[in-house]
């Protein structure tokens, strides 16, 4: 009996140690970024093991913001990602509702097609997409950065999934009371799926904050560059200023990481929810 208990305590202790070691290993790169962003150049160039800076050296952050267009990049990132989230919040619930609750010619084709777009790698349509945006005169403009992401296949599926769970009775009751279809959507359906909209916003925000290749191709100057592209250009110019690169990286990573830490449960549910979308 007591032997058994000792054994159990021991395994749980070992398990905890294993989990802790795993946690350290997994977060090591992120922690090192944070630490390196406070180092001076001597510390970063040290060929011996130096995990922490001698003192918190805020000057890297000041220099990043003063010398490079980080405010501009941050501002652009916020505007572009914000616009993408907003457009997705407007359109994908509409389409999801339509796919979940209505029948019309072409619906199955649309559904199948949206499903298929999940398989299409962005690079495979990169060139024609660039040509379309170029023909529209959208190179290096906000619409050019935003419009190709105004809707997303996974967003539509997420919304369709949630719309399927809205009881038909509610919708029919609205019809019997003489409400127009538009009113039913805005006053009955949308309020019912409000939590799903928050999930959608989070998922879309995270997916687009990180967009790199398109922003690289479609911006021609600093004025509209978002943080990822700004960082990459910074890397090209200042190959050896790793401490500044890390400070800039912390700034670029912070919004999503903070969002994640603030809304962990909803965030994790949102990501996990995507797997139910076959």
């Amino acid at each position: 009996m007591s032997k058994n208990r000792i054994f159990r305590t021991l395994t749980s202790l070992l398990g905890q140690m294993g989990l802790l070691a795993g946690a350290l290993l997994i977060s090591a790169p992120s922690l090192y970024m944070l630490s390196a962003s406070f180092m001076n150049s001597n510390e970063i160039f040290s060929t011996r093991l130096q995990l922490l800076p001698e003192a918190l050296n805020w000057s890297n952050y000041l220099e990043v913001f003063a010398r490079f267009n980080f405010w501009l990049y941050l501002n652009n990132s916020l505007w572009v990602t914000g616009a993408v989230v907003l457009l997705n919040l407007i359109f994908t619930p509409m389409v999801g509702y339509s796919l979940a609750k209505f029948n019309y010619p072409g619906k199955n084709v649309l559904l199948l097609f949206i499903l298929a777009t999940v398989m299409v790698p962005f690079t495979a349509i990169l060139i024609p997409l660039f040509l379309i945006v170029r023909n529209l005169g959208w190179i290096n403009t906000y619409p050019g950065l935003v419009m190709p992401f105004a809707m997303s296949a996974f967003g539509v599926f997420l919304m369709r999934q949630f719309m399927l769970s809205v009881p038909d009775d509610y919708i029919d009751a609205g019809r019997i009371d003489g409400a127009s279809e538009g009113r039913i959507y805005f006053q009955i359906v949308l309020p019912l799926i409000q939590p799903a909209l928050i999930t959608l916003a989070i998922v879309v925000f995270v997916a687009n904050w990180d967009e790199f290749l398109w922003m690289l191709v479609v911006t021609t100057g600093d004025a509209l560059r978002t943080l990822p592209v700004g960082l990459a250009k910074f890397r090209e110019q200042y190959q050896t200023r790793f401490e500044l690169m890390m400070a800039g990286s912390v700034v670029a990573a912070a919004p999503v990481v903070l969002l994640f830490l603030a809304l962990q449960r909803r965030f994790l549910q949102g990501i996990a929810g995507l797997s139910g979308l076959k």
Partner: protein
Amino acid sequence: MVAQPTAADIRSQRRQGLFGNTLEARKRRFGLFFALPAFLFFGMFYVYPLFQTFYVSLFSWSLIDEPSFLGTVNYIRLFADKEFLNAIWVSFLYAFGVVIPIWGIALGLALIFNRSFRGRQAYLTVYYIPAVISLTVWSLIWLLLYNPSFGLFSVVMRGLGIGGLRMLDDPSTAMLALILLSIWKGTPVYMLIFLAGLRAIPSDYYEAAEIDGARSWQSLLLITLPLLRPVFLYVMVISLIEAFKVFTPMYLLTSGGPGSATRVLSMFIFQNGFQYLKMGYASAASVIFLLILLLLALFQFRLLRFQQVD
């Protein structure tokens, strides 16, 4: 649930169509109206580009001059181009090098997190962090970590007795370096998807198994893994596509080099299209890229159907 429509229902619905003032017709018009943005968006940004890719692939075009028609010449050149064949090979190497370890590690972690223990939620949060760090940032961190003289990775390896590592400059290790950072970053999402799948398995099954005297490894092998099959297939499909799409780490860490050791298809298309301005050639490569992914997807669906039958 909704009753199955009878044949008569379907006939009468067809007759009504989109027009008229019946409730059904009005509903249909509204549904179509609400789907319009999707028709427009996916038509403009997916369907049209797909056709356009094929069309442009038949031309020689540098964006500046007038396109000149070549027919299938781009395709013939592609298959004689060692760089292109190398890009296909390197893409497969990277994709499978990343996804196979991810499947194992993610499933293992999900099984651990499916138990209850002290600090579970906190650990889950920490384990998930690499996934929420932007890939650009993540790549730059590893650029520093891999630096041969002062990067943390190299310093630690030197401490372990493996000195003189030049992970990104050596053709034999550059791919390994990129695979490692991608596994590190990619695992958490799939861990979470597996975890959601595990949670969806009713606990009755385990209780019944326990009553029947099944050991925990027997439950794992005979209940958990078979029931997790659909989730596993979903993870297989999605993770492979994600891996084939990879671009950012190559762009930031190796530019496809050293030599062509890490020039994946995305990198090949980007360089030919936007650096050498060979729009037609890059489009032809895109078409082949799409076909490869289509074949992979078909193969995986085949697997899916096969498994549903037995």
